[in-house]
Every structure is written in structure tokens, then in C-alpha cells.
């Protein structure tokens, strides 16, 4: 009788009902291409860990955060009064910077090893879309803080949106909720930051992981060794990194606790030396340098053209650099060698400009 109806303590109970056994068996047999010994192969995995950290700390922040007019006061309260609020906010803030850094590094290493080529074109494209999501989260998160930097970040972002031809005013109204930055803007940024973008990111990350799982990790051009098992060899390295990254993250949040800037006052002039987050510095410097008009196009629109051209080039990279044509490889390398120093130079210039 006991044999025909397995009880809840039977280890096969869950396997029979979920089919998890086959899944675990597959994972156990999974192989990773030999030669993937470098830490670069784990950057994406650590980025996933940071996504989990951001989701959890984000939910915690949402408990005490108030959008709109009370935003600054609630952030100040989280930072200085709520027990361990400084740690939750600090972790969320530092992890956000780290996440942008890791996604950029992941993209660069995938570019350098040409991992985006067939059949991994869509893996690359979902990765680029993930970068856009992470940048959008960084921008909307800055606005949520409600200090002076938040106000002027929102002003510049909305005016930039409005500078887009045809759809600009509509989009700016949609995102800002009114003609100027106000209570409506904070609430809408919360909807974007804690609702729309995380959902988009979750879907994209799921697609990305599904594609990685479908095609496996990209083998190095000259495999130096036999394939290694994913479990336990690869996974244990990844798990070690997760633990190290978590410790470093919390330590960094404790060492450099987040600050609360002055409350936003629309009457006060923009404070001297105000700057966006580091990942927007190249665009910031470009906006400072551009004249009001370039021929018949406004300066902000020239900046948009530059941003959209770079985005389109990066997104469609695997479609034209497919490894079949020599010139395409050369063009991709040349563009990378022009673009990277240019972005780095603009960023450094923006960082040091007063």
C-alpha cells in the first residue's frame, strides 16, 4: 500500500509532481567549453546576483519610501532614522553603479571574443536591451531621491525627451505627468522605476538566460582544454564569486554610506558643479560642448542623433558583423577603437569640467 502511494517525506514526491528531476539531471550533465577559466565568463553571473540584490533591497526601500512631495524627507528618514535603512539604501545605490559597470564589462568582453556571432545574435541583442533597462533604472532612481540633483536630473531628462521630434512632447508628458517636474513626476518615476522597468528587465533577463542555456557558453576561438562540467566546477566558482561580491557590496555600503543632498527647491539656482551619474558623463559633456544650432538641427537633437546612432550600431552589430566578411570585422574593430576612447575622454572631460 505504501509503495503505491508515496508520502510527502518521499524524496521522489517533488520530482514526480514538478518534473524537477529531469531538469536536475540535465544540469548535472551540462558541460562548459574548455578554456573558459577566465573570470570574464562569470561577469554575467555576478550581474544576475546584483539583479536579485536590487530586487530585494528595492522592495525593502519601497516600504518606507514616499513619492512626490514627501520623497526627500522619506529618503532622509530611511538614511538616518530607520534601523539599517542606511545599509539597505547604500547597498541598493552601490549595487546600481556596480550593475552598470558589470553589464558594460560583460558587453565588452562579449564583443572582444566575438561571442555575439551566429547563433548568439539574439543573446547579444537582449543584452544590449538589458543595458538600456539598467541605465533607465539608474536615471529614474536618481530622480526618486528628491534632492537637488534629482530635480535637475529630471528637468534635463524631460527637456531632452521633449527635444525628440514628433514624439517628444507626448513622451515627456507621459513620463513627467505635467509641463514641469513636480509631484506627478516623482510618482510616475516610481511607476517606471519600481514597476515597468523591473518587469521589462525580468523578461529580458529570462530571455537572455534561456538563450545562454540553449546555445551554451561561447567557446574560445582556440579551445585549450576538454570541456569541464558545469556542476560542480563552473557553478562552485560562480558561487564563490557570489559570496565574495555580496561581502564586498555590503562592506562598500558600510564604508561609503549614501548621502542625502539638500532638499530640492525650485527657486534656488542649480548648484555649481552638479553632474549626472558617471555613466551619463559622456552625454553630459557632449551637451555642454554642442552649440545651440548645428546647421539646421538643434544641439540637443544632435546629441540624440549621436546616442541613437551608437545604440543602433551596437544593437545591430551581430547582423552585419557575422564573421563572414573581413571588412565587417575591420569596421567593427575600428568603430570600437574610435568609440571607446571617445566615450572615455568625454566622460573624463565631463568629470573634471566645472
Amino acid at each position, binding site marked *: 500500500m505504501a509503495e503505491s502511494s508515496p508520502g510527502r517525506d518521499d524524496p521522489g514526491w517533488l520530482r514526480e509532481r514538478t518534473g524537477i528531476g529531469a531538469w536536475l539531471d540535465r544540469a548535472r550533465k551540462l558541460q562548459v567549453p574548455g578554456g573558459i577559466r577566465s573570470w570574464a565568463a562569470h561577469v554575467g553571473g555576478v550581474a544576475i546576483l546584483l539583479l536579485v540584490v536590487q530586487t530585494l533591497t528595492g522592495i525593502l526601500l519601497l516600504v518606507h519610501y514616499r513619492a512626490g512631495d514627501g520623497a526627500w524627507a522619506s529618503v532622509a528618514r530611511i538614511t538616518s532614522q530607520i534601523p539599517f535603512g542606511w545599509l539597505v539604501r547604500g547597498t541598493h545605490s552601490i549595487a546600481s553603479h556596480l550593475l552598470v559597470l558589470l553589464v558594460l564589462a560583460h558587453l565588452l568582453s562579449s564583443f572582444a571574443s566575438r561571442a555575439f556571432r551566429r547563433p548568439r545574435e539574439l543573446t547579444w541583442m537582449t543584452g544590449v536591451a538589458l543595458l538600456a533597462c539598467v541605465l533607465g533604472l539608474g536615471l529614474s532612481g536618481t530622480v526618486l531621491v528628491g534632492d537637488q540633483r534629482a530635480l535637475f536630473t529630471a528637468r534635463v531628462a524631460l527637456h531632452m525627451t521633449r527635444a525628440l521630434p514628433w514624439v517628444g512632447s507626448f513622451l515627456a508628458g507621459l513620463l513627467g505627468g505635467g*509641463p514641469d517636474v513636480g509631484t506627478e513626476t516623482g510618482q510616475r518615476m516610481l511607476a517606471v522605476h519600481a514597476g515597468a522597468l523591473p518587469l521589462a528587465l525580468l523578461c529580458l533577463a529570462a530571455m537572455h538566460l534561456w538563450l545562454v542555456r540553449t546555445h551554451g557558453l561561447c567557446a574560445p576561438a582556440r579551445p585549450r582544454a576538454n570541456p569541464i562540467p558545469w556542476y560542480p566546477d563552473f557553478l562552485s566558482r560562480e558561487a564563490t564569486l557570489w559570496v565574495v561580491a555580496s561581502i564586498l557590496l555590503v562592506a562598500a555600503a558600510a564604508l561609503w554610506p549614501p548621502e542625502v543632498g539638500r532638499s530640492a527647491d525650485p527657486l534656488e539656482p*542649480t548648484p555649481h*558643479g552638479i553632474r549626472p551619474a558617471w555613466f551619463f558623463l559622456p552625454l553630459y559633456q557632449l551637451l*555642454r*560642448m554642442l552649440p545651440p544650432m548645428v546647421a539646421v538641427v538643434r544641439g540637443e537633437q544632435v546629441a540624440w542623433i549621436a546616442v541613437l546612432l551608437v545604440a543602433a550600431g551596437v544593437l545591430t552589430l551581430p547582423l552585419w558583423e557575422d564573421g563572414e566578411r573581413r571588412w565587417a570585422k575591420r569596421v567593427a574593430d575600428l568603430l570600437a577603437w574610435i568609440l571607446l576612447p571617445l566615450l572615455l575622454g568625454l566622460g573624463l572631460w565631463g568629470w573634471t*569640467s566645472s
Partner: protein
Amino acid sequence: MDDTDAPNPSGPRRTFVRAAVALGGAGAVASIAWPVGRYLQPVGDGVPEDLPPTDVCADSELAPGQMRSVRVGPIPVIVLRRHDSSLVAWSALCTHLGCTVRFRPESDDLHCACHGAVFDAATGTRRSGPAPSALAKLKIEVRHGRIVAWA
């Protein structure tokens, strides 16, 4: 086999079903997109055409070369007493990307800290930087000994 029952990708019935599904799908999308779009419409107040006359300070309080910041409607405004005792009022919103400009008495200009636009304090026109146009000028006068600004 009866030919009339064989699947025919270009047959009129197939075309009709495809068109019906496409039309129905478009209708379904529109019936969701329209209410959502309306729901998301901006609800904040627009900038009114006429900004109400706003009290700045007493005429005697503002010495030549001095300035006052004041909100006229939703707009931050900088009121300046020129050295020839005339009054001038500029919208402090930078015409580049909407940051708030600061009056610099040493160089007699208005400077935006965001992207470095500089405006002339006397005329409001652009001196340097990325701003596309001059600062918006507000009307200003002295009524019963008080400075009043409006637009």
C-alpha cells in the same frame, strides 16, 4: 478527393479569415491602448498663459546691483535692479534644458551650472554656451512702493 475542400492558401475564404483576425486583433489592441493612453495623460497644471502679478519686495529694499528670487506662478524669476536704477525680471529657467540660472554680479550675467549657458543680465540674450534662445522676460513695475512682476 474533392478539390473544393483542399486547403488553398490564397483562396478567398483564407483571405477573409486572415483579414478578420487582423482587424479584430487591431481592434482589441486599440480598445486597450486608447483607455491606457488616456489614463496616462499628464494631469499636472500647464504653465498658464498669464502669470499673476506677484509681489517681489518693497521698492526701497532693492538697491542698485542687487537681486531677488521670487516665484511667479510656477516659474522661478530673478528680479534685478540695474545700476541705472531700472528694474528687469528674467525667468530663471535656462532655455537649454530647464535648469535654474544664477545671477553673477561680478560678471553681470546669468549662469546655468548644468551645461554652462551664460546669459546677459541686461538683455537676457545668450552670451555663450549651448542655450538656443534668450531668457524669457517678465513685466515689472512699481505699484504703491512695491515691486510687482507678472507675465
